[in-house]
């Protein structure tokens, strides 16, 4: 349901378990309704924050706000986990503004809301969530795409947001129904890239929309986390992780950990990672560079049954 807010048309969406009103159209998100948790507006964004706690190459953090500055693209001011103000440079396409809005700016907002965003995709297996974390290029989206082809429903492609129930059990919230894949992978998987939107001009990556039956909209309990790694060895190995090793992959694959700068935020993050590790199983999945995808997914399915 879209509505007018002080003369401006706001589009209403749902994503990451939140209802979002946005002045910038975001067609990759599902339509939402009801009172907004988050408002995204255009406005004037300052070049610097007051009493900055931390300053990165293109971002600043203080106790209340997060500022992302991308030259010749846009500035994003994220405040109190409720509002994102965007000031865009002239001539920039919506898709480019959205790429960083739904990535880093949203990552900062989720952290401000006290959620735990993990850098990984999530799929539903028997009414529970399995999350595959890994560094960029480790094959998260590719794996999600193959699992989707095998009939599993997807919760998230790149950022899996963990929230906690009253008894502190971790749940995975659905992100938005899109997988981002390169043209070469799409060809390999027998998917057609004709007519798909480019994620960013000049970046050979396409957004594959997920159909309603292929996407989970509600939060489901987190069952298991796999860390994806690529090695030079010949063998595909799945190694169960316990204790500190399990905690280490949750901490190590938190999305945008450099945005967590305050002491209270760091402590909360550590406690949430501990809660998550306590409640889920975890394994490390090491695959050779030239691994056949079907074989990889066969092994993963074998592992979780």
């Amino acid at each position, binding site marked *: 349901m879209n509505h007018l807010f002080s003369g401006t048309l706001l589009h209403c969406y749902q994503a990451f378990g939140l209802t979002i009103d946005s002045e910038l159209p975001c067609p990759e998100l599902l339509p939402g309704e009801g009172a907004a948790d988050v408002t995204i507006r255009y406005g004037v964004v300052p070049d610097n924050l007051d009493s900055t706690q931390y300053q990165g190459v293109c971002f600043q953090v203080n106790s209340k706000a997060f500022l992302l500055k991308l030259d010749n693209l846009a500035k994003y001011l994220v405040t109190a986990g409720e509002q994102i103000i965007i000031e865009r440079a002239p001539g920039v396409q919506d898709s480019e503004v959205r790429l960083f809005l739904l990535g880093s700016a949203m990552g900062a907002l989720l952290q401000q809301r006290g959620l735990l965003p993990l850098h990984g995709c999530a799929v539903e297996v028997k009414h529970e969530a399995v999350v595959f974390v890994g560094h960029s290029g480790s094959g998260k989206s590719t794996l999600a795409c193959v699992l989707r082809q095998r009939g599993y429903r997807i919760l998230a492609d790149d950022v899996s947001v963990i929230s906690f129930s009253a008894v502190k059990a971790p749940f995975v919230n659905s992100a938005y129904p899109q997988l981002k894949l390169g043209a070469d992978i799409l060809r390999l998987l027998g998917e057609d890239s004709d007519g798909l939107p480019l994620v960013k001009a000049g970046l050979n990556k396409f957004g594959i929309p997920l159909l309603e039956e292929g996407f989970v909209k509600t939060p489901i309990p987190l069952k298991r986390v796999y860390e994806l790694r690529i090695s030079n060895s010949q063998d595909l190995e799945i190694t169960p992780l*316990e*204790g*500190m090793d*399990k*905690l*280490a992959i949750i*901490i190590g694959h938190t999305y945008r950990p450099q945005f967590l700068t305050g*002491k209270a935020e*760091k*402590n909360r993050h*550590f*406690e949430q990672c*501990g*809660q998550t*590790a*306590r409640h889920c199983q975890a394994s490390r999945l090491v695959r050779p560079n030239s691994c056949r995808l079907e074989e990889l997914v066969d092994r993963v399915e074998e592992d979780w049954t």
Partner: protein
Amino acid sequence: MNQAIGLHNTIQRADDLVSCDLDGETALMSAVNGKYYGLNPVGSRIWSLLEQARLVADICAFLRQEFKVGSSQCQHDVLFFLNELARDNLVKVVDEPVA
């Protein structure tokens, strides 16, 4: 340089630490240096005893009731462990009597 911790010292956990239990191990994070630490099951037991200020000799006595270990071995291992924790400021000496 602080003095090494001995059996006669009373120690407790330092401030600014967060800990969580994981499959019988304990993970610690120090807000002071931003580092993470993992304690094995025996280390975790010592850590749980340190929830309150305790005499190091008492910690050894507790452990000898719970684990099959000789007195001198126990003292040696506990002192080694506690001095490692102290080196990274995870525990502090509080020799003044705690009411």
